[in-house]
């Protein structure tokens, strides 16, 4: 089933967010590897914000990603 534009928007937002604040590498990944990596990074972000850790882009996770915030990464590099 084609992915809805809303889903796509969410995925783009999440990808940018995780690259910026959770050290997810940018650029192309091997097929399959990128979704695992993304799930792992989503879990990291959910753990940090004490959300339910699902690895999925549920409403609460996306809602938090959309909030105004500081540009320093949460994962202290």
């Amino acid at each position, binding site marked *: 089933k084609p992915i809805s534009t809303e889903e796509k928007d969410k995925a783009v937002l999440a990808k940018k967010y995780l690259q910026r604040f959770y050290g997810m590498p940018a650029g192309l990944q091997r097929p399959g590897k990128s979704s695992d990596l993304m799930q792992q990074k989503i879990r990291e972000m959910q753990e*940090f914000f004490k959300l*339910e850790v699902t690895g999925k882009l549920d409403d609460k996770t996306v809602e938090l990603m959309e909030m105004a915030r*500081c*540009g320093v990464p949460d994962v*202290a590099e």
Partner: protein
Amino acid sequence: YNHFPRDLKWKTTNVTFRILNYTPDLKKKVVDRAVRKALNVWSKVTPLRFTKTFDGTADIMISFGTKEHGDFNPFDGPEGLLAHAYPPGIGIGGDTHFDEDETWTEDYHAFNLFLVAAHEFGHALGMAHSSDPGSLMYPVYSYAKGFPLSEDDIEGIQSLYGENPDHEKFKPKPIAPEKCDPELSFDAITELRGETIIFKDRFYWRLHPNMPEPEQTLIKNTWPEIPNKVDAAYENPERDVVIIFSGIKMWALNGYTLVDGYPKYIHKLGLPKTVRKIDAAVNIRDTGKTLLFVDEEYWSFDEQTGTMDTGYPRSIEDDFPGIGDEVDAAAYHYGYLNLYHEHTQFEYSYSARKVVRIMRANSILNC
């Protein structure tokens, strides 16, 4: 709280700062004052001292810029990213940048420059983000009045620089309560359109049937008008309002909005002036009565007539044997009254007129 790797910090407690440019949103002296106040937040609790310079390179160089502004770490236009800062170090270390595409204010509108600056200067001094939603170093912006540091922030910065040898008295914000703390007690519980809201300190947990993980939020984030401390709360489903009690005042909320004409004094309900605080409140949907618990006694308010029932107050201990004589919070579900006191929850059956179950108060939070 978190620090940066290797606990990066300034080698000296005398730190210099310089404001390179200004936002047109605020007068220059308002920006100067906000920056100084934001630095004072940290010097109040540590030996750190900040000196303003007007030329050359300071430890903390402060500037406003949009999108790509010279450090290959671009901003993103309005909302989203508000500002960022670099951990202590030479060169860009300590530098703090604000997104000029935001609207900067000195009150609760848009983004309060003082609050954002205080957060960013936390980074410039060595603090990374905290996962405590009540901390200043929590990554997501929220407006709050009063001294912005929580105990979590203070513990973090003092573990880098020590305490302020000549500190004045200050009142840090308490750490966010842990939901599975076995000693956890509640301030108030109410239903709100099918969800359960549990108030504790400046926070509330929100339980939703299809949300297994309770969500903790600052009260002021959702209801800026009501106080940081809620004594009691109940929902009147007929009127679709939640009544919030704090001290001798009460507020009526219709979802997220405050009903006009509130706050009102609790004595308007018919309580005597000697009552200064309501401990717990619960609406018994089957009878249309609202029980108001005060110290060892309780009143019954008839929502239909808007008057207090005669024959009250009555003794809690006499009418609800087995639960002790004080109640912190109360909820009613399908013929069972859940009465909370300290870290215990008593399930009282109206029909059997006795306590049928005793649990930990925070078992409602899946603990």
